[in-house]
Structures are given as C-alpha cells and as structure tokens.
C-alpha cells in the first residue's frame, strides 16, 4: 500500500499541485524538517491537504498524516480506504461521542509523524477564515515539546471551493509562520496562534474575493 500511496503522490498529487495549480511559497525555511510536528492551516478546499503535503519532500511521505473528519471521510468504506491508505489521513471524530478523539493523533505523534490540522474544523466560505476551535490547543497541551507551525493558504478557495466539483487553475500562495510551542495555558496558546495567523494574513495582503 505504501507503493500505491507513493505513486499517487509522485504521479498525481505533485503534478496537480505544481503544474495545474502552482505554488508561491514564502518562508520555506520555517517548515519543520522532520517529525514529530504539527502543522495548523486555514481550510477552504479539498486541495488544501494535497498542497500542504507537497511542501514536504517525498522521502517524508510515510510520516505525513492529515487529520480528516470521520463523519465526512469515513462516510463509506471506499472513501475511508482512500483517506486512510492513500492520503494517510487520521479519521477524527468531530461528534464528541468518542471518549477521546485525539488518541489516534497522539499515536501518530508518538511515532514521529508530521500531523496536519485545520483548526477551523471545516472548509466554510471560500477565501474567508472562520475562528479557530480550541482543539489544537488541547493537542498542543498534550505534546508541549512538539512545535506547531501555522500556515496561511490563499487561492484554494478560488481553485476548488466547498460545494464545487470543477477545479479551476489558480496559483496558491503559501505563507509559513514561525513554529509555536505550548507555553502552559490554552488561552495563551490560542492567542499566539491567532496572532501568528493574523500576521500571515496581513503579510499576504490579498484583497477579499467577492
């Protein structure tokens, strides 16, 4: 299955992200070199995950694991198989019925993974950022030594927004923030993360899309 996953990323995902879309990456040097690490990004599109994973070299592919909503990506067996086996996703229970939805993330981090997390929880309105949920602070508090790198993505809401089926080529702006660490309280961590994202948004200076 590792080979299928490698082929899918080498022959489908990378050409799609690099040639069909195109990347304009700022502050590449702030990306984590290796796991364990968290990456927290804003969410607009199904392509977000593929773009984030393309930022890392293919040799790290076995360590890359995006967190995916179980109610959506675990909806049927085929989609769940694709999400887990090919994308390498960690199915995450958003309903709160599970006793500990973060347990599979803990396991991945323990094995040295780079885990991608969308703190907005959903894709929402195209090119608009919703407030971050506190789950990311909870995760960070469980792994205070693991860096959390904020990333601001712009353009994917134009390329493939929620409820659209037809992708349109747009170059994607990727702004990487400096890695944060959990400093002891959740409020403080959320403030730091929101501040970092706001700074990246301001640095991008993109006009609103209406």
């Amino acid at each position, binding site marked *: 299955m590792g080979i299928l996953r490698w082929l899918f990323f080498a022959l489908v995902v990378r050409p799609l992200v690099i040639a069909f879309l*195109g*990347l*304009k*990456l700022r502050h590449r040097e702030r990306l984590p070199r290796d796991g364990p690490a968290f990456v927290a990004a804003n969410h607009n599109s199904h392509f977000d995950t593929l773009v984030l994973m393309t930022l890392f070299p293919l040799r790290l592919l076995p360590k890359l694991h995006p967190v995916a909503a179980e109610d959506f990506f675990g909806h049927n067996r085929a989609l769940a198989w694709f999400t887990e086996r090919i994308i390498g996703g960690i199915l995450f229970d958003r309903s709160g019925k599970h006793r500990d939805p973060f347990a599979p993330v803990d396991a991945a981090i323990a094995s040295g993974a780079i885990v991608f997390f969308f703190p907005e929880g959903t894709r929402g309105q*195209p090119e608009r950022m919703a407030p971050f949920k506190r789950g990311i602070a909870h995760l960070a508090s469980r792994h205070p030594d693991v860096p959390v790198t904020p990333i601001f993505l712009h*353009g994917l809401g*134009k390329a493939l*927004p929620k409820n*659209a089926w*037809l992708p*349109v*080529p*747009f*170059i994607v702006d990727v702004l990487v923030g400096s890695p944060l660490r959990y400093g002891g309280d959740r409020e403080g961590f959320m403030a730091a993360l929101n501040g970092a994202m706001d700074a990246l948004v301001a640095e991008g*200076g993109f*006009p609103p*899309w*209406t």
Partner: protein
Amino acid sequence: MTLPGPAVLWTLGGLYVFLIAATALARIGDPGGEIVTRIRSWWGIVGLFTVALLSVGWLGSWVVLTVLLAFVSFLALKEYLTIIPTRMADRRVLVWLYLAIPLQFWFIYVEDYGMFMVLIPIYLLLWLPMTMVLTGETRGFLNAVGTLQWGAMMTVFSLGHLAFLVRLPGDVDGGLGLLLYVLLVTELNDVAQFLWGRLLGRVRIAPRISPGKSAEGLIGGVLTTTALSIGLGALLTPMRWWEAATVGLLLSVTGFVGDLTVSAIKRDLRIKDSGAAIPGHGGILDRVDSLTYAAPLFFHIIRFLYYLPG
C-alpha cells in the same frame, strides 16, 4: 534521427558559449547573488527549449515544441488570472479562457491560419460576455469582461504567434530559425537593456511605472539589439540587412513597451513580481512580457515581407 540545419545549431552553440561566459562572469563578480540565480534559471529555460527545438528533427514532428509553447501560455494565463481581481461569479467562466489554449494551439498545429486569427479576437470576444451574462452578476461586469479578454489576448493570442511562426515558411529549418531569432532578439534585448541600465543608467524614463528603467538602458539596448538583429537576421531569417536592422530596432522598442505594460499592471495591483515561477526572474509574465508585443509584431512583419500566400 535528423538535426535542424547548421544555422540553428550554430546559433544554439553560440548561445551556450554566451551562457557559459555569463555564468563564469557572474560567479566571479557576484558569487551567491541574484544574478547567479537568474542565470541558473536561464540554463533551465534554454535547456528546455533546446530539447523542444531538437525534438522537431528527431521526431519529425512539431508536437513537443507546440505543447511546450502552449504550456508557457497556460502558465502566463494562470499567473495573470491569479494576480488580477476576479469575481467569484466568474469562477466557471475562467474555464473557457483555459479551454481557449488547447483550441488555439490545435489550430496552430494544423496550420489553420484563419481560425488562429479569429478564435480569440472574435469568437472568445463574443462567447465570454455571454457566459458572464448567464451568471446574472452585474456588479463589476465591465471591469471583469475587459480584464479577462485582454488577458486572453496577451497570454494566448499574442504568445501563440510564437508557435505559428515556426510553421510559416513550411520547412523545418526556416521555421525554427524564425522562432529562435525572435526569442533571442527579444530576450537578449531585455538583458542588454538591463545591463546598460545597470552600467550607465541615470535618467529615469518611466519613473511612475518602472523606476528601474533608464534612458541609457533603453538606448544602449536598442543599439545592441539592432546590431545583434543584423547578425542573427542574416543567419536565421530571409531578411536583408536593412530589414533586419529595422526589425531589430522595432522589436527592441516594443519589447520595452511590453515590459512596461506588465509593470503598469503590477503597479496598479501593488505587487512586485507577477509570480515566483522562475527563480531570480519573478513570474512567467515578468519573463514573457516583452514577447507579448514582439511575437505578433515580428510574425506579421515577416509574413507580410516573405510568406504571404499567392
């Protein structure tokens, strides 16, 4: 396996000698600087085009070269649509612009001059507003229809002339010669204007649009390019020396104008580079801006002078 004729091969050889010399000079003069990155990107561009040019001889087919030029068009259009403000309502309309690329380059590939000339200036011009009306969104309509059509004209129609230029004479060496001529004259004109400006530049010529451009750079570039055009024109095209000199002068000045139009757009949008596709150069538009003027002008001049049917 056949190769293009000696004129094309000698010119390519000369270009590589020039690149090696430039690489050595830059490494000594400014190691690790912006210019070194810029020249490294030139190696990539020249290498890619060499393979595409030679493939015409190897495969006996224009397909690789046509696809490469279509891809350059695609990258330029994508960059343009990314930097301009588009309307959410037009997201699907943009697909028609992208579809114009394979259609346009197909007409070039089958040498259908009539369709090549009318697809974008006529049919897209009529089709685009219709699809936009169907979205029902009137806010910003005029601005959107204007920017979208102009983008297609510059990145697909204008740049498409490069690919049709190859087919004009009806033989491999003639066609490759014309393409190589216009690419070299235009791009070396950019380089010459840049270098003369760096060396002697004092009088700003377009301070509001592009503060880096100087009168000395323009004049030095025009003289260099005119001289270069006489040599390359004799080697690669059927032009007589005074025709080559006049065309060189014209391409040098209009290349400068093409550069300024993209600079004006970037100023308007308050961005520095059109993209980040080519390390050291900025985006694709930053590199092909002068070609959007030079390619159609040279095409129609050379066609008028030498290749009018009948």
